[in-house]
């Protein structure tokens, strides 16, 4: 294994980790904004790239404090979040359409569960899906899926979420998927 490839892998994971700790994460299946993304790994190419960041609630709390000393917005956002999961996988050969069907199925299930489709973008082979879950006035879940012929990105953030702050943070840090979030301004 070359140091460059390790560096690249660690670099990607560091970016996702940093996201996860700028925007904390946890695996709370009971949380209304939580979406199980385990299906993503079913479509991963065996010898391809697979990156997953998944922090539990305690880790979020542990990281939110120190993170806020370096990035105030990150600390504020972290305080309200219950869970973050981000996955980037290189798809196995010819799985693009199959994944798209799976994503559409997930989208339908989420809509029937009270989620809203707020954005769907198609540009060539790239498909972007943005879904939000609200409870009263509060936004409690964000799920972003990006699919193209070779790659699938899944990001789920659960908890009390300020979408503007999240979008700003995503823009600052160029977090995979979350740059597709709508902003109120």
């Amino acid at each position, binding site marked *: *294994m070359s140091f460059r490839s390790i560096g690249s892998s660690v*670099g990607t994971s560091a970016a996702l980790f940093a996201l996860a700790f700028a925007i904390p994460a946890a695996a709370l299946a009971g949380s209304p904004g939580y979406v199980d993304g385990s299906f993503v790994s079913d479509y991963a190419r065996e010898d391809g790239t697979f990156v997953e960041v998944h922090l539990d609630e305690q880790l979020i709390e542990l990281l939110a404090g120190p993170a806020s000393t370096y990035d105030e917005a990150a600390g504020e956002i972290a305080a309200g979040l219950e869970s973050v999961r981000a996955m980037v996988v290189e798809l196995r050969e010819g799985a693009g359409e199959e994944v798209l069907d799976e994503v559409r199925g997930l989208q339908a299930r989420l809509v029937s569960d009270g989620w809203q489709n707020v954005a769907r973008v198609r540009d060539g082979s790239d498909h972007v899906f943005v879904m939000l879950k609200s409870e009263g006035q509060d936004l409690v879940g964000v799920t972003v899926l990006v699919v193209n012929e070779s790659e699938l990105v899944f990001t789920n953030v659960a908890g009390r979420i300020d979408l503007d702050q999240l979008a700003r943070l995503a823009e600052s840090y160029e977090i995979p998927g979350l740059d597709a979030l709508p902003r109120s301004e």
Partner: protein
Amino acid sequence: MRARASWAPWRGPRNPALLAAPLLALVTLTSCVGFSGPRGLERAFSEIDGAKVERVVGLSVSGGLVDRALRLAGNETGMKFEAGNVDRVQLGVYQLVSGGNAPLLDELQVDGLVPFVKVRDGCEEVRIFAGHSGGRLESLAIVVHDGADLVAMRISGDLGPLAAEAMSAALRRHAPRARHPTRLAKR
């Protein structure tokens, strides 16, 4: 005529500091450096089914030495690390004696540590684990496997500030280069 022997008993250096310095260095280094592998990880490696790993190198460095290194690194990179937060850094390099090139780390479970980053690229794998207790991030472990060798590092101490600074810097440095499908969609 017989030559006079020029040998005479060595009475030590004229300047005592010349002797004291290496002795001090020896005492310091032996108390700061050990040769054990990362705690807990070796046992976890031994419990992976169908794989046998042997340690090639083990190194354990105390926090004091790490602090000095971090300060040096901080001076070079402009990052500020809080001295005294790291208690110990342990590093191990292992050779995979049997087990092939298949992904190895999927079933790796380490007592007291939770995996939160998983990276796989072909037969190369990276895992990052975190351990916490009493509301503090106390341990971070990184394991890298390339199909033939394993490299493991475990950092222990009060790691919250260190992790925050390191990850913040890593994010700013690496994130702009990350591949970004959504950027295509925005064009």
